[in-house]
């Protein structure tokens, strides 16, 4: 039977994958997707712990995380659209206007 540690390890791996994705990819949308992966990994942790502790709190927090993720995705994509109109590119390195 899987133990808590299994789930936690799985979650850790997924989180790391998401991190790598954020860093490595040069496509803004893919970066956002990687963030979603990270969020999901965290969700998994919450549910696992909730199950172990026998409380509903884990699932409720997941509920909130999902809401926030949705909002974040919406706003993030809106920003991407706005940026795309500006430079016609989805490469984050193209957007260096905040450079000193």
């Amino acid at each position, binding site marked *: 039977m899987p133990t808590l540690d299994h789930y936690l390890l799985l979650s850790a791996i997924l989180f790391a994958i998401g991190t790598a994705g954020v*860093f490595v990819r040069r496509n803004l949308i893919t970066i956002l997707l990687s963030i979603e992966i990270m969020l999901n990994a965290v969700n998994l942790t919450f549910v696992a712990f909730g199950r172990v502790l026998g409380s509903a709190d884990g699932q409720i927090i997941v509920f909130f995380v999902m809401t926030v993720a949705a909002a974040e995705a919406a706003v993030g994509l809106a920003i991407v659209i706005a940026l795309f109109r500006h430079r016609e590119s989805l490469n*984050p*390195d193209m957007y260096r206007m*905040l450079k*000193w």
Partner: protein
Amino acid sequence: MLLLIALLPFLGFLVNASVGRRLSKTLSGGIACAALIASFVVAAVAVFRLLALAPEERVIEERIFSWITSGTFRADFTLLLDPLSAVMILVVTGIGSLIHVYSTAYMHEETSPEYARYFSYLNLFAAFMLLLVLGANFLVMFVGWEGVGLCSYLLIGFWFQKKSAADAGKKAFIVNRIGDFGFVLGVLLLWTAFGTIDFRAVAESVAGYAPEETFGRLSLITLLLFVGATGKSAQIPLYVWLPDAMEGPTPVSALIHAATMVTAGVYMIGRNAVLFSHAPETLTIVAVIGAATALMAGTIGLVQNDIKRVLAYSTVSQLGYMFLAMGVGAFGAGIFHLYTHAFFKALLFLGSGAVIHALGGEQDLRRMGGLKSQLPITYWTFLIGALAIAGVPGLAGFFSKDEILFRTFANGHQVLWIVGILTSLLTALYMFRLVFLAFHGVPRHPASATQHPTDATQHPAGAAEHPAGLHDAPPAMALALVVLAVGSILAGYIGLPHALGGSNRLEQFLAPSLEAHAAEGGHAANEGLELALMGVSTLVAAAGIGLAVFFFLRNRAAADQVAHRFAGVHRVLENKYYVDEIYDAAIVQPIRIVSEEGLWKRLDVRVIDGAVNGVAETVGGMGELLRRLQTGSVRAYAASVFVGVVCILGYYLWR
């Protein structure tokens, strides 16, 4: 009611300071004079009330408001009227009123705003001076003390457009300040010693101790207080401001630098007679400095050519006498001389003012002469003043000066007595030199000789016009001169000593105030000695006048020859022993150099500015460095976030 005495001139000040410039000269002058005359009346009433009390109980104290209450320390704004302050307020208001009236004529050539400014300062001075002498504790006295210093500065530098006047005002204030520093230290020490700064409380506390044998705490306190007195009352070493103060209008010199402000130091010692008599070491110092100053100033006055300078050094010299008196324990005699000196010195100054006014601004004795016939009122009143100061018997100065000399001798300070006698000789000599050079002989001034108008070069008040001959003092001025002359004759009689049949009522009157130790006593037994010494003083005065007659009336050439023979000495005296130059080289320049080179250039510019600018530069520099973090690359930021996370996690895992 006591408050009213000081309040009336203060109100006069307020009026003249605020709306004075729009008032006519008559009105602003009138308000000022009225204020002070009213104050005189109130003072007289107060003194009458005081006299109605029995001698041991002659104290009227009025607490106006409670000023400082801090823990156990308490200092209230309290005014005190006792015999000593009674004498002082009458002198200040009485002679002050005369001088105010005199000023209305003397300053008449000023514009209306300037006229009002002058009178506002003069009233303010009177208010502060009255506060000084009516104060019941050191705090109130100090308010007055500083206030008169301020007014002195304002009045000396009244014609501030003239650089020498502005400088003189500054010099007076700064030198005074040095004295005041000592004074404040003294007061603070006094408080730590006694817990109070109320005069009567201190006197009561001190009375319980025996006089100090060596230089102890009381001596230190009194010495510091005396330092303040040397500043205010122009003694060695802080007298240097007084001759320069002659830049101010002559009535100012008469009031402030003859009759009132400079006497504040003497008054202060008199007020604290009990305290001082418990510190014999300090008293010795006071006496020595007083005598030395008297002699030194006398020698300088002998060769000065500016009429007002002679009188200035004379004032310093006479103040020296007063301090000599205080120093040998004859507190009453010192106050007596203060009182008579106020009369004749004010008279002399006002007389010289009349001369200057008549000559359209001339102040150099070498350009005067033969004015006796043209300015009769001025001449005769001036002569009376000169006789008084020289100590000719019968006039006020004789009694007071003689009392001092007698006490000096009788209390065992024979050396100081000799100094005093020498100074008497010099006093008569230089005084009559002044009289003869100014009023006798051949008229040397163009205005008096050819009776043509001259242009005024020294007196910024403007040239007066002299159609034919010189005009003597106008009524306002003449009135003051005559009253003061009468006073110079008669004022001394209330101090008529026992030896001559009087009962020295002044000293008796003052005794409860001064309550000094038995140093005062023992005079009754010595009437023979007193008479003998009086004889000596008279001889000396006569000798001085005789010498003056010889050198300056009969045989002017002889005077020049003597000056020629002792050219070196003459030069030293003429340059006032180079004291100003010495001070400048020894004190002023080093301070200036330290301030400018050291403090300003090194400390302020390099260190402080350096530190402040350095901080700014450091912050800026760090900003420069840190801004390189803003690469604008989102990935770099993300990378830094993640690396941070890894590091933090790693750190916690490590632990």
